[in-house]
Structures are given as structure tokens and as C-alpha cells.
């Protein structure tokens, strides 16, 4: 058992493990909506769209998470604004905002030169650099997001499954849709630290897609997805420790392995 406990002798490993598990669960739960509502492209876009926010926070020496959060919410709301009346299709609006934000981020970053290392941490995560205050922020935001999802489980179910029923029941579908985008943006921001912006989209999609293969109802799908997200984070982090590979990649590759196993299991079952 010593190989299990050895990494935990280091405090930064303990914090890293906690942070990855929290982020794994959070991404997996929000990911069910991403998979069911076909928002994978949006998740990917959102992850890249927070670059300018991070860059601005860097320039002014502010908190990276705050900068990323502000950028993500701004992008999420402007996508909602452009596509609300149907003048522009949602995926088109996402494409425009995604490219614009990414370009702005790269433009801002290219004007500076000193932080190549930190930039790679933003892109691929630096789970071992999670400070106690980072951990508190990750835990707090995750709690708020998961609580909101729990409280709004039924309205989110109805607007996702049957928009006509949502209208007849007089649900504020527009507001709920925007709220979901904001929650998604915050999720991406929270996962910045552990898997980084370029792999956050994978953590949103892969565990949820795996759970979709294994379950038939939304609530179990969320639970199974969360379990796969947590397991992938733990296994991935150990792989990263022993084989000295980037933690974000190890976590995502573990999640992908779960997906492949579930896919094969489903195939053999249906034959």
C-alpha cells in the first residue's frame, strides 16, 4: 500500500489530489448538460475564450481566476445575446466569439515575453501548484455550481428535454439557458488550475459521454459521470506522479480509457 500513500506525504500532492477530484466531479456533472444539449463545441470555445481574461489579469497583476471568470461570463452572455432572437445561429455566434476571444488573448500575450512557463500552466494546468487559497476557491465555486444544479434540476431537465413544455409551464427559459451558460463558464474557470484550458473541454465531455452509454435516466447519469470524473482524476494523478507525465493529460487519458471500455461493453452487450 505504500505506493498509494507515498505521494500523499507531500502537502502539495494532497491539495492537488483534492483539487483534481473536485474538478473531476464538477466537470462531469456539468458535462451531462454539455453532452445532452450538444454544447461540446461551446465548452471548447469557452475554455479558449478565457485567455484574454487571464492575460489582462496578468498584465495588471490580478488574480488569474477572477480574470478568467470575468472573460468567460462575458463571452457566455454575448453568445446568448447574439443568438437569442435567432438572427445568428448559436453555433455561429459561438464560432465568432471563440475566435475573437482567442485572438484577443493571443494578441495580449504576444505583447509580453516573460511568462512562457505560466502560459503553459494556463493551457495544460498545474495541479501541483494549487495553493491553499486556490483550493478554497475551487471548493467554494464548485459547491455553489453543484448546489445550483441540484436546486434547478427540474427546470434544467424541462428546458433541455422539452422546450414546448417549458413554455406552457411559463418557465423563464431564456434566463435558465443563460444561467446554464454562466455555470458552464465558471466550471471551465475552476478547471483551469488542474487540467488547463485546452483539456477542460475533454473533462466536460468524456465522463458524461461515458455515463450516457451506461445509464437511462438523468440523475443516475450525473452520478455515474461524477464517479468516472473522480476516478479519472485520482488514477490520472497517480500516473502523473509515477510516470512523470503532465497531470492534465494523464487525467484526460484515463477518462478516455473509461469511455472506450464503456463503449466496448455496450457493443458486446447489444450483439
Amino acid at each position: 500500500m505504500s505506493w498509494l500513500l507515498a505521494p500523499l506525504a507531500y502537502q502539495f500532492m494532497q491539495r492537488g489530489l483534492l483539487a483534481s477530484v473536485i474538478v473531476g466531479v464538477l466537470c462531469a456533472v456539468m458535462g451531462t448538460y454539455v453532452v445532452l444539449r450538444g454544447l461540446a463545441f461551446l465548452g471548447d470555445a469557452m475554455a479558449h475564450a478565457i485567455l484574454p481574461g487571464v492575460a489582462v489579469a496578468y498584465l495588471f497583476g490580478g488574480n488569474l481566476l477572477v480574470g478568467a471568470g470575468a472573460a468567460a461570463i462575458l463571452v457566455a452572455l454575448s453568445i446568448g445575446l447574439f443568438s437569442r432572437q435567432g438572427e445568428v445561429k448559436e453555433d455561429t455566434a459561438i464560432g465568432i466569439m471563440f475566435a475573437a476571444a482567442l485572438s484577443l488573448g493571443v494578441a495580449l500575450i504576444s505583447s509580453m515575453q516573460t511568462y512562457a512557463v505560466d502560459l503553459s500552466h494556463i493551457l495544460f494546468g498545474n495541479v501541483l501548484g494549487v495553493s491553499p487559497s486556490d483550493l478554497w476557491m475551487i471548493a467554494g465555486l464548485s459547491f455553489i455550481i453543484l448546489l445550483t444544479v441540484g436546486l434547478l434540476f427540474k427546470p434544467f431537465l424541462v428546458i433541455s428535454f422539452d422546450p414546448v413544455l417549458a413554455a406552457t409551464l411559463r418557465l423563464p427559459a431564456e434566463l435558465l439557458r443563460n444561467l446554464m451558460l454562466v455555470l458552464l463558464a465558471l466550471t471551465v474557470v475552476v478547471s483551469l488550475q488542474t487540467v488547463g484550458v485546452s483539456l477542460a473541454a475533454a473533462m466536460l465531455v468524456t465522463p458524461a459521454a461515458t455515463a450516457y452509454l451506461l445509464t437511462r435516466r438523468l440523475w443516475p447519469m450525473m452520478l455515474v459521470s461524477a464517479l468516472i470524473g473522480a476516478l479519472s482524476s485520482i488514477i490520472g494523478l497517480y500516473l502523473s506522479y509515477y510516470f512523470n507525465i503532465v497531470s492534465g493529460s494523464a487525467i484526460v487519458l484515463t477518462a478516455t480509457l473509461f469511455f472506450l471500455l464503456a463503449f466496448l461493453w455496450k457493443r458486446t452487450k447489444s450483439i
Partner: protein
Amino acid sequence: MTHTPHRLEIENASIGYGEKIVMRDLSFQVPHGARVAVVGPNGAGKSTLFKALVGILPLQSGRILIHGELLGAHKDCVAYIPQHEDVDWRFPVTVSDVVMMGRFGQMGWLSRPSKTDKQIVRKSMEQMGIGGLANRSIGQLSGGQQQRAFLARAIAQEPHILLMDEPFTGVDVTTQEATLNLLDHLHSQQVTTIISTHDLNLAASRFDLVLLLNHKLIAFGTPQEVFVKENLAQAFGNSLLVMENGVMLVDECCPPEEEHDHHDHAEVK
């Protein structure tokens, strides 16, 4: 009750999509508990009227009152079954999950289903003959079974007014019968039912009132009052053939997929 007020009133309503007005200056009143058949040629605006009644499509002018209050004041008293359910059939929900959604309006968005809610859901499914399918995924059901699942959801909603768009078109006999039985049941429960149909015999035999439409109100009254030559000629134009012995034929089949799409076929000039 000493007086039965009109429970559904439409006053000078004009309905349309953007610039295009589909229904002009529509006024009628439906008394509480009545069974109303909505009849008219393809593209006459029947589905559009339903969407307005349920609040999905805002009125261009005029107003709709339910129990004397503006549409939207009562959150859960109108149930609506569109011609084609626009839902995600691959969504991970079971049949009983779908029917339970009918209870959401009454149970409150934050609370969990009570024993009563679960009982109502079970009874609604049994009434529509899909009790045995409760734990199936909604996507696994046949078309008729899916329609019955949505009918069960409408019953579970315990509405005062039930709107059904073409429930008899393109479904199996079992579902047709289940729907007709449901109409009788709802009539005994004093629920107002408004149903669009292409079946004029059905409209004449099973309904109290007929609403004849073609982009405007042509006639509204009992089947005897509405189904006369002048009205039908006005509604169906060239599709109507009057025989010498008084028999009238209406050439009306195959409703189009969407009656509000922009190439409108039924504009009778």
C-alpha cells in the same frame, strides 16, 4: 355555481410570425367543459392558433383570457399536445419521468414528488395503457406509445383546458381509441378540450362545438350550425364538391408537415 362564466375568451386576436399574419381578428368564447373541434383546410392556421393559446407565440394584437384573467396568470391550467413532439428522443428519461414532468408546475420547482404526485403519474399511465412501459426509455417506444405517454403527461398535469393538435392523424388504432376514451373521461371531469382534426365526421359526432377557420373565423357553433354549404365553401373553396343529393365532399388529406412554413398552400384567392 349560479353562473358559468366563459372560461376561455379570445378577443380580436391577430396571430402570426413576424411580419406574416396567419390569423386575423379572431374572436370567440368557449364555455367551461366544452368539447371543441377546430376544423379548416391545411395551412388555415390551426396549429398557429394553438401556439398562441398556449402562449408560445405572442399575439400581434387582441387578447386571450382564461377564467377572466390574461393568459399567463394561471401557470398550469393549460396542457398542450403538439402535432409533433419537438423533444430530444435520445434524452435519458423514462416514460414515468416524462409523465412526472406534467406534475412539475403544481408540485413547485424546488420540491420533490410527493406520494400523491407519484400516484397521479401511475394512474395517468394506466389510463393511457402504458403502465407496463413506465421504466422504458422514451426513445424506445413506438410512435403511438410515445403519443400516449404525452397524453398521460397532459392528464397528470390536471389541466382545465387541454389543447391537442391533430391527435388522430398518423397514429395507430389503439392510440386513436385511447385518445377518444380520454376525451370522454375529460368531458366527465369538466375539462375543456380543444382539438384540431381533419375528420369532419368525428368533429360532427364527438364534439359540442366546431370552430371553422381559414386564416380568420368562418363559423363557430354546434356542428349542425357550422357544417352548412356556405361555411364549408368559404373555408375549403375549390376543395369542396357539393353533390346533387346534398352530399358534400371535401378533398382534404395528408396535412403538411408544418402548417406554418413559408410556402403556404392553402391561400384561397
